[in-house]
């Protein structure tokens, strides 16, 4: 009797052992290790969704925005006042800072996709290739933004010996990188763009998915990179390549769609946006800035709404519709600037015309053409810079344009005190959280 019971126990235990592995095979709800093409896509979509909005935050540092003790909301003042009046040494602790880690999280995922491309299942070769291409583009764009936020402008330093930013080209959480030179970062951006070109096979994504990087955007980022480097001929070639394939512009004389909408015909990549509180709260376009628009310019009335005689509110933002990172107008303005800077005035004007035609009413278009015809070469360059300001108002181009060109000493007045932007302040210092987590990035001997 006892023996039988004991035996039964042993059998039971043996049965249990074999059942254990099944018992222990629990996939945690909601958790996943990416394997399929869809899952890799979802990893990348996360990066798009939470892509840094620093380019839009630079608006606060330019002459596009005013802040006012009585009119600005308290949350604005807490978050942006010190950023706006350029108090960069020990700003108030409530100040919102530019990002750091988020860039590198995107870069990590980009590297991860690039490294795992051969392991992606349930996806066609074209889908995998597109994913990898987007990853290269993502890495290039993040490094590009970082070097233009945290390192001296390429055009105002000796790039090969000036401290740039750290670069991450591997998905390795244990690496402790130092900073690379400005030149090295730019070269890496250009190399990544070349790689992206090889892999991307979607020229422009359809509406709704057009926040994703696409073939057309590579050329436009290349044009922007060369422009920021002051390599005019290369910038022109790249911009020309965009215009050749995607020359469409939104006609503001007839269309109600704003050019920075993701629905606009000129949109290539609708990624960065103002959908954080930022846009709705920093909603005070500078009246002086609005004066840059000539009468008859559709943008003045469509971008801005006059609230009182001296204040405006912004209409080209406020919800997710207004997402724009790359659009065709930039190609025209880049081509025009590159030509003008090389002294080819007539040709430059030819690239300005199509844009002006779509932005100004017909009479203003004519008077502006006449005005431009009388301009000197320098005057034309200035006109193109102003045109960039007008076109891309509040889209996060202005800060980069100012820092790569004249670095004007902007002036603010707040609560009876005046503040001046020093040229050195066109380069942000590394966030102290990043420096304390890795002092190596700040060390530069040259």
């Amino acid at each position, binding site marked *: 009797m006892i023996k039988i019971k004991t035996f039964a126990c042993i059998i039971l235990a043996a049965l249990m052992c074999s059942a254990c592995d099944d018992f222990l095979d629990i996939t945690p709800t*909601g958790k996943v290790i990416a394997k399929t093409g869809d899952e890799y896509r979802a990893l990348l979509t996360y990066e798009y969704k939470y892509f840094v909005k620093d380019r839009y935050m630079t608006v606060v540092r330019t002459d596009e925005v005013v802040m006012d003790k009585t009119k600005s909301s*308290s949350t604005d003042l807490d978050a942006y006042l010190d950023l706006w009046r350029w108090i960069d040494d020990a700003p108030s602790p409530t100040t919102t800072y530019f990002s750091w880690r988020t860039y590198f*999280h995107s870069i990590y995922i980009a590297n991860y996709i690039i490294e795992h491309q051969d392991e992606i299942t349930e996806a066609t070769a074209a889908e995998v290739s597109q994913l990898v291409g987007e990853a290269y583009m993502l890495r290039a764009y993040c490094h590009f933004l970082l070097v233009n936020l945290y390192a001296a402008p390429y055009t105002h330093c000796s790039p090969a010996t000036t401290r740039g930013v750290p670069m991450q080209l591997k998905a390795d959480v244990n690496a402790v990188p130092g900073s690379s030179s400005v030149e090295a970062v730019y070269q890496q951006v250009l190399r990544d763009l070349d790689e992206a070109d090889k892999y991307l096979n979607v020229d422009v994504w359809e509406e709704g998915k057009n926040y994703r990087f696409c073939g057309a955007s590579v050329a436009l980022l290349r044009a922007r990179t060369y422009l920021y480097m002051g390599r005019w001929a290369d910038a022109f070639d790249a911009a020309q390549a965009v215009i050749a394939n995607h020359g469409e512009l939104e006609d503001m004389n007839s269309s109600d769609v704003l050019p920075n909408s993701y629905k606009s015909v000129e949109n290539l990549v609708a990624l960065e946006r103002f959908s954080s509180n930022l846009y709705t709260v920093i909603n005070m376009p500078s009246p002086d800035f609005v004066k840059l628009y000539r009468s008859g310019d559709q943008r003045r009335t469509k971008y801005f709404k006059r609230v009182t005689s001296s204040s405006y509110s912004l209409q080209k933002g406020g919800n997710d519709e207004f997402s724009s990172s790359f659009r065709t107008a930039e190609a025209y303005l880049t081509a025009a600037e590159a030509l003008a800077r090389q002294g080819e005035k007539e040709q430059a004007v030819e690239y300005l015309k199509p844009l002006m035609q779509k932005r100004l009413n017909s009479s203003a278009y004519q008077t502006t053409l006449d005005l431009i015809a009388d301009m000197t070469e320098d005057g034309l360059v200035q006109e193109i810079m102003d045109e960039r300001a007008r076109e891309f108002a509040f889209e996060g181009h202005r800060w980069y344009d100012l820092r790569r060109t004249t670095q004007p000493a902007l002036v603010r007045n707040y609560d009876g005190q005046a503040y001046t932007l020093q040229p050195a302040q066109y380069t942000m210092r590394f966030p102290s959280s990043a420096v304390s987590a890795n002092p190596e990035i700040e060390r530069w001997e040259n």
Partner: protein
Amino acid sequence: MYENIIMRRISLFLFILMSTVMVLAQERVITGVVLDGEFKGEPLIGANVTVGQGQATKGVITDLDGKFKLSVPANTQKVVVSYMGYKSYTLKLKQGVDNYKVTLYYADKSLDEFVVTGYQQIDRRKLTAAVSTVEISDETVGAVKNIDQALAGQVAGLSSVAASGAPGAPMKIRIRGTSSINGVQEPLWVLDGIPMEGNEIPAIDNLNDIDDIYQTSIAGLNPSDIENITVLKDAAATAIYGARAANGVIVITTKKGKAGRPVVNFSAKLTYNPRASIDRLNLLNADEKVNLELDLLQSSYDYRQHKGGVANILDDLGEFDAFKAGGWDALTPEAQQRIDRLRTINTDWNDILFRDVLNQEYNVSLSGGSDKAHYYTSVGYYTEQGTVKGVENNRCNITLKTDYKLNSLLTVGASVFANQRKQESYMTDAAGFTNPVYYSRMANPYFEPYDQEGNYVYDTNVQGRESEVPPFNIFEERNNTSKERTDRSVMAIFDAELKFNDHLKLTSQYGLQHDNYTMTRYAGHDSYAMRKMKEYATFMIDGERKSIFPDGGMNKQTEAHTDQWTWKAMLEWNNRFNEIHDVELMGGTEVRHVETEIVTSTAYGYDNRTLTTQPVLFPTESIGQRYPLYQEGHTENAYVSWFATGSYTLLHRYTLGASVRFDGSDVFGVAKKYRYLPLYSVSGLWRGKEEKFLQNVKWLDELSLRASYGLQGNIDKNTSPYLIGTFDKTSVLPGYIETIISAENAPNPNLKWEKTKNVNAGLNLALLNNRIRLNVDYYYRRSVDLISSRQLPLESGFASTTVNWASMENSGWEIALNTRNVAVRNFTWTTNLNLGFNANKILNETVAENSTYPSREGRPVGAIFAYKTAGLDSEGYPLFLANDGTKQTAAEFFKLNRFGASTLSAEEQRNLYTYMGTTEPKCSGGFINTFEWGDWQLNVNFMFNLGMKVRVQPSYSPTYYDRGLNTNHDILNRWTPANVNSTLPGLMVNTAARASEYTHFSEYNTYSMLDLWVRSLNYCRLQSLRLGYRIPKRVLEPLGITSASLSLEGRNLFVMASDYDNYLDPETMGNPYAQPITQSFIFGLNVNF
């Protein structure tokens, strides 16, 4: 039950009657005497002497001399002798011997000879492991509300620290120091053999997280249901629990019914807690605060200069600039008058925010049983109000325990522990200042919360922001917000024991734990919390700025439940060969499954009177996603384990033991072969007293030596070698919903098991008729591949990851000395001194290349490093003592660049620190004295922790001191041009000359790392002073009461400590948000029927 017992007694009586009249053939008459082993062999009157089973039972009871005479069938082998409360004795009849002498001992005493490990009952004489047992009763541990409080100062090597004095706040318990750094450091709690789920105390990341109310599952147990607690300390004891036992095991044994008539026990406790005085905080009074503000306005320190009552008045009258330029004399009489009026107001925040409370606790239990069954039933209720108004905690318990001996083979038992707990507290804001404890320190002494009509006055200074903020008033907040948590928990344990014969038994246990809680967080329309929420949810909608939330409040409900089941089965075999070889073997398996689900739903526009809500109209999908109205989470884990133990004892004095366990679990994304790590131990015991040469040494009662060696291990389940993501749904552009995978946890392909090798050696010594008992244990633990979280360079894309970072050793001594100092006829004095000395050393540590904080290699794990200062310079900035002995400014010491960042490498920065000491006590323990005089009993219970260092928060920040807040007196002693001899840094201003230092002190944590903020910590607390009185039997007998006692106890009456100026209590020193640990006075009544 009563009827049952009466019936049984009648039948017994009948049997006795019959046995005297019935004359049967072939009988034999046995006689004998039953003696009381507890009273020097006095005869035991009325003991049962029975023979046979069931219907055939017959027996007699002993007479006044303890004698009996019983005729039994000639072939009878055994006679059972029993007496209520005593352990039954089975008398084996021998041929030809008809007269016997039997001595009975207390059932309790004999239980004490066994140690309950949760898997087995081990005979103390074979115990090779380091364990301590604490009997839980008011006499031994005092009036504790939760069982975790009972252990403070009771067990050598166990430290127990309160994080907060809030009702229901758990204790932080550590056994033999810290072994694992990451994740769970709590010991494993085991209730009657079943490990309990849900006892991890969440790590406090932000100091104000202390307000998050949570409940551990042990908090649901009623201390009065507990018989004793056994603490398993070394590997020999814990190896059988596997990986979960890496931090030690605490085994709770609950009370069970004893054979005999039903016993009813009633106990009641009334507790009075006076509010804690905040005088120790040394806060500024109104006059001092006004003077400080005036001084600061005259100085160049301009951080938040429009804050504070003085600036408020000046701004109101438009005289701010006039004062800055011309000082006091430049002010109008009105301004002077209004400022002077501030000096006269001294709002006593302590008085209006805190209260004295009276708390109650009641327990009733009914227990009893027979040879065949035992029962224990209890009901308990306890309610505790916090000294912080609005904080409350209560608990109701029901416990049912029964066991039945079905036949000679099978015993089954079932117990149910059910409880409901309710906790009420206040809502706190992320900024922390709405916490009343914190607010009482930060609010200005001249601020009055009500105006003359009794309307709320809003405090505009406390928010820690300069700009306009939503109005806040602490009383309005308290009236319009609440946080309530209700826990319901049921734990059921079924066990069966199949005893095949004296050598072999099969036991099985099935435990079911179901915990659920509902948490309700409510913020009314008229509350700062709601106003702030609305402001943060303000968007541009149709060209207009407005909040997306409708009018009204918010009601957030969280429902969570955890279900655990554990099943285990064990086969135990023991035998004795040739009278000298004892062998015990046990093998078994355990399967466990835990499932947790949590659902949170949020309603806005909530009106708590009508219980109506309003829909939220989100302008866009992405805004809607930020305010989820419904969230759900689900986790599931499964474990399978095998274990075995064995022991061999030779000549009753040499014992060798071993145990091994394999743990398997469902670690996601790990190869199957890594699922198991065998954990084992080997151990030995020598009982010297049994040796011939010691047997005759009269003064020596026990001399035993123990030794064990074992391997413990732990793995971090949250870190995977793979990039693990979490699914979510979102829309990037309007109208197009997509799946995203968020992967915000850094993978680590190199992560290994954390392993601890454990050596223990112990000595048990009892001298002079057990008047002196000494237990000494020495342990050495060497842990390798310790798992810890490490900060990553942010360029990795992640903030931190989990790595195997170090190896560490812990070694220490534990001494428990129990002495019976005086034992005369009416008076006894016993002392229990327990001491733990733990030395901890990091053997090697891979310091991350990016770390600027030094390696602890060669130092304890709790090492504190700080920058040595050398006074202040001529502008009140700290001077640093460099390695070469020179005094340097921060700019020189750190080689700062113009952005205030150090240009030194991480390694060079590490070398700037100096070692200050460790946060872990060098010596901790308890000193308990018990005096008994007749019916009076006095307990004096001290606990102490010595030799620690603690890093406190700086009293004020030199760059960000916010004059809108109150602070302690340190600010008055700061460096100023008029007070150049101060040791406390002055307030700094950003000047071109010292911009880099200013930025550095503002943005880096250098200031809080100065040696100024490291203090020595030694304290000794009078944990309990208790006077008990047993009401004499002669008073009680006429009332039908068996026994009754009264007690008066003072808990936490005083604490002696070094250097805790500006803090309420040395234990909660570091956290200004923690509710203070208050004194309490308890009146207790305990009655047995």
